[in-house]
C-alpha cells in the first residue's frame, strides 16, 4: 500500500545512524520481518526516486485524544549516506512523508525448535531485530554483530532486552573481539551446528562468508540483499541479482524487490 505518514520521532542512535518512527495505517501490523518500505523523502524531483529501507520495528501508541483510535507506527533504522538519507535526517516531528510498502517476501522463520542465528552489520541489523522480536518468545536466538568500528555496532542493548545474547566483533577491535564477526560465528558453530538456521543481513562480503559457513556446516541460511531500486514492486526489472544457476550464456536474474529481498543463500551466485 501507499500512505502519507507523519514523523513521530527522528533521532541519532549512533554517529551516522538514526532511527525514525513514522505513523502508519493498521494494515502495517501485518508486515513480516525482512520486508521493506520505499520512502519518498521529498515532494518534487530532487531526489526523484523512492529510497528502500528495511522495517526495523512496528507498534502502536496511545492517541493524543482519548476518543481517537489507536495510532500505529513503523520504525526505520537508517544510515546517512547521501542526499535522500540526508533529507530524511533533516525531518522534524510532525513533518510528512510518503511511504510505499510493506514490500518483498520477508524471512521464513522456519522450525521454532531450531536455534536461530542472526548475523548482521550496520543497518542490516534493522530487519534482524524485527525478526528477533517475533522469534525470541518461541525459539533460542543468538545474534552476531559485526562492523568496522564500535560506532557501526547497533542494537546490542535492544537484543539483550529481548534476552538475546549478542556476539560482537569489530575490524579495529574497538568493541567486542577484533576481526570479522563471521569468524566468531564459525567458532560458535564449531561447537555444534545441527538444528540451527542462519538469518543474515549486512554488507555483501559478510553475507557471502555467512553463506559459505552455512554450506560448510550444512545448515540453512537466509540472506537479505540490496540492489538499486526504482519501483519496488517488480515492474521495472531494475533490481536484479544473479541466481545460483547464472552463467553468461544462460543468465539467471532474480528481482531483489519481488523475489527477495530475502533469498536462500543457495539460490544466489556469490563470487
Amino acid at each position, binding site marked *: 500500500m501507499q500512505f502519507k505518514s507523519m514523523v513521530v520521532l527522528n533521532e541519532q542512535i549512533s554517529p551516522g545512524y538514526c532511527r525514525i518512527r513514522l505513523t502508519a495505517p493498521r494494515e502495517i501490523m501485518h508486515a513480516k520481518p525482512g520486508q521493506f518500505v520505499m520512502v519518498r523523502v521529498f515532494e518534487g524531483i530532487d531526489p526523484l*526516486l523512492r529510497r528502500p529501507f528495511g522495517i526495523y520495528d512496528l507498534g502502536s501508541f496511545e492517541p493524543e485524544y482519548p476518543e481517537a483510535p489507536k495510532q500505529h507506527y513503523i520504525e526505520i533504522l537508517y544510515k546517512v549516506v547521501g542526499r535522500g538519507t540526508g533529507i530524511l535526517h533533516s525531518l522534524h516531528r510532525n513533518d510528512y512523508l510518503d511511504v510505499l510498502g510493506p514490500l518483498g517476501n520477508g524471512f521464513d522463520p522456519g522450525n521454532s525448535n531450531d536455534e536461530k542465528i542472526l548475523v548482521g552489520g550496520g543497518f542490516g541489523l534493522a530487519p534482524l531485530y524485527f525478526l528477533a522480536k517475533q522469534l525470541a518468545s518461541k525459539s533460542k536466538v543468538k545474534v552476531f554483530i559485526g562492523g568496522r568500528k564500535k560506532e557501526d555496532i547497533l542494537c546490542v542493548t535492544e537484543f539483550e532486552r529481548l534476552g538475546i545474547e549478542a556476539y560482537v566483533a569489530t575490524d579495529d577491535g574497538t568493541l567486542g573481539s577484533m576481526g570479522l564477526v563471521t569468524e566468531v560465528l564459525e567458532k560458535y558453530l564449531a561447537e555444534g551446528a545441527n538444528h540451527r538456521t542462519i538469518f543474515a543481513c549486512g554488507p555483501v562480503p559478510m553475507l557471502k562468508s555467512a553463506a559459505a559457513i552455512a554450506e560448510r556446516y550444512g545448515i540453512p541460511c537466509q540472506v537479505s540483499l540490496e540492489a538499486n*531500486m526504482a519501483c519496488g514492486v517488480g515492474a521495472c526489472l531494475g533490481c536484479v541479482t544473479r541466481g545460483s544457476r547464472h552463467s553468461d550464456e544462460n*543468465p539467471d536474474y532474480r528481482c531483489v524487490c519481488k523475489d527477495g529481498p530475502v533469498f536462500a543463500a543457495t539460490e544466489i551466485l556469490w563470487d
Partner: protein
Amino acid sequence: MKKPDLSVEIAGIKMRNPVMTASGTFGYGEEYSSYVDLERLGGIVTKGLSLRPKAGNPMPRIVETPGGMLNAIGLQNVGIDAFIEKKLPFLRTVNTPVIVNFFGNTEDEYAEMAERLDKIPEVSGLEMNISCPNVKQGGIAFGSRPDAAYSVVKAVRESTIKPVIVKLSPNVSDIVEMAHACADADADALSLINTLTGMAIDLKNRKPVLANVTGGFSGPAIKPIALRMVWQVASAVDIPVIGIGGITKATDALEFLLAGATAVQVGTANFITPGVTENIVRDMERYLVENRIADVKDLIGALQA
C-alpha cells in the same frame, strides 16, 4: 455542466481517456493492479516483448540522475509464449485496451512478432520499439535511420491488420524525417519519445555506474525534449501521435495534448507514485470542468505557436 468527454481514439483503438502506461514501466499490468484501477486508464502498454525470452543486462541496471534516471534493463522479458500463457489471462480480465510493445533483432523477427500478435484477440494494438538504446546491436539502427525504419515498419505493416504504433527514438538529428519515414510505411500512429541515451559515472571506483555503461534516460528531466519533438512531429504528420516523456501530472499531460498528442504515456512516474496514472485522469477531468472544456479532444494541437 455535464461530465466532460475524455475519450480519444487512436487508429481505431477507442480509449476512455488519453492516459496510458509506458512500456517497461508498468510490467504486464498485474504488478500495479493493487495500486491502480486499471479500468480507469485509457490503455495499458506492456513491457517490450520478443520472440524468445530475454534475460536482460547484468546489474546494476538503474541509477538516479538529476531529475531523471538511467536504465539498462536490456529488454528483459518473458517472451511471447510465456506472455500468452502467463500474462495474458490476467489482462483478459481487464476491460482496457492492451497495447503490446515489441521488438526484434531483425526485420524478420519484427514481422514474425507482428504475425504472432495479430492472432491474439485481446491485443488492441502493436507498439514497435525501433529504438533500444541500451541493448548492444539492438534496435538502435532501425530507429536512427529513415530507410531502415521505413522497411522494418513496412514489414510489420504487412504482417498484421491490427493498429501499428511506431515508437520513435529521440537520439536522432531529425525526428520529423524519421516520423515521415514511418508514416510513409503506413504506420497507424507514432509514439514518442523513447529514452535518450545517457551515462553515469562512479567517481570513486572510476567505473560507469551501469554494467551496460550507457542507459536509457527518462523522467521529468527529459520533458522539454519530448515536448519539442512531439510538437515538431504532430505538426508534420497526419497520423495520431502519442506523447511520452517526463509526465508526472495532469498539467504535463495536457501540455503534450496542446503540442499535438492525441494521447500520452506515463513511464518513470509510476515508480514514484504507483497511482499516478489514475491521479492524472482525475485531475485532467477536473481541469476540463474548471475551464469549461466539454471535450478533451478540443485541446489536441490547440497550441498557438
